[in-house]
């Protein structure tokens, strides 16, 4: 049963994400209340953690021998919660400090850090590209799919067709900020 759920997550099935979300929501909130009482923040973090899990599954990085879904949600949740609390109150002492693994930060980065101006701008330009481009780029960059896999998923004749379509999409993206300067 759980195996099927994991397979569906790996295939990028959003309803599987909703199921996982419902399955561990109560236990997670109970667990996280030990560290923080604000329900709204905890829910927000639980959503981010669920998405981080989905990221891992979709991009083929979920190693299930090592850690089950629940363990991942709890340890990542604690990491994100502690990071957020510490940013809000820099002097805060938290019990049970532990060595966080570099992998946790890597997965959590996009939830914790603000995007730089170039990335924000690209995000908006992406939305204007049209559905096909959006889909190709999502398969390629979010799901780490190969040209061959994308060709099959989108019913193209040949991986090269995907390749040239992708480079056209990238070209329009480049055009979009040709005259833009970004300050870092």
């Amino acid at each position: 049963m759980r195996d099927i759920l994991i397979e569906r997550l790996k295939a990028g099935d959003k309803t599987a994400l909703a199921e996982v979300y419902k399955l561990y929501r109560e236990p997670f909130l109970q667990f996280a209340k030990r560290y923080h009482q604000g329900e709204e923040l905890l829910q927000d973090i639980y959503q981010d953690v669920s998405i981080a899990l989905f990221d891992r599954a979709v991009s083929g990085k979920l190693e299930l021998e090592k850690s089950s879904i629940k363990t991942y949600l709890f340890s990542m949740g604690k990491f994100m919660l502690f990071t957020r609390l510490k940013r809000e109150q820099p002097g805060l002492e938290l019990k049970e400090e532990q060595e966080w693994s570099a992998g946790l930060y890597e997965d959590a980065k996009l939830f914790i850090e603000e995007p730089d101006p170039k990335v924000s701008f690209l995000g908006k330009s992406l939305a204007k590209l049209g559905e096909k481009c959006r889909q190709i780029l999502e398969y390629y960059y979010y799901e780490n799919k190969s040209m061959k896999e994308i060709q099959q998923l989108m019913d193209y004749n040949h991986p090269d067709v995907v390749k040239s379509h992708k480079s056209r999409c990238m070209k329009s993206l480049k055009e979009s900020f040709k005259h833009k300067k970004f300050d870092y």
Partner: protein
Amino acid sequence: MESNELLDRFFKGSLTAEEKLMLEELIRSDAEFREEFELQQATREAVIRNKHKELKAFLGGVEEEITGSQKIRKIHPNSYLWKIAAGVALLVAATVLIFNFTGTPSAAPATDSFLSYYTAYPNVVSPITRGEELNPEDLEKAAFVAYESKNYSLSDSLFTKILSYQTDYVQFYKGISKFELGQYDSAIQYFDNYLYSDGTQLRDQAKWYMALSYLVKGDTLRGKEEMIRLRKSSGYKMDEVERILLEIE
């Protein structure tokens, strides 16, 4: 190996140690390649962030579903609570009736009077040139064309399609479309989403329309609260806000 192929394998996470060295060398020595690499890195991050926004909105819906059904479950098993509630409702109804009959000045002004403060906010974000040829894939343009021609049910559904990639002002204009369709609860949700987004340009406007939505749907209490909040944070629509607050008093 071609440099493009190297990038493909990098993004797939399948570089060997040797290929990794090759990639690093290329980044160091070839400026053009480095630029391409950086663009693709940034694009990757933007794609993932957009996907996160989409998933976050999706889970927000799941969360609403859960908390909504919990509230119903909490009330349901205690039927005596219902009786108390019914009693209170009767009392309220009776009081209102008595007050109306005895001719005391009626409490809240009709919601219609709040509607007179409303005009649809102009499109200030996505300029449309008349006669311009439309790219059918440019959903945002299409949505704003519908919006400007007051076809709000069409703009509403088109905004939905681009909601997940462009969370800021689209949320706001979707809220206005919902208001126009008379779906005030939903409008409130979108104005609220906008206020939670990174958008800065339309914050006061979003507060104003959110407050109006509450008033028009009949929730004077929340409407008043939001008006007061708007008054505190800025001078936007200052006169109107004052008049409305006086009307409510």
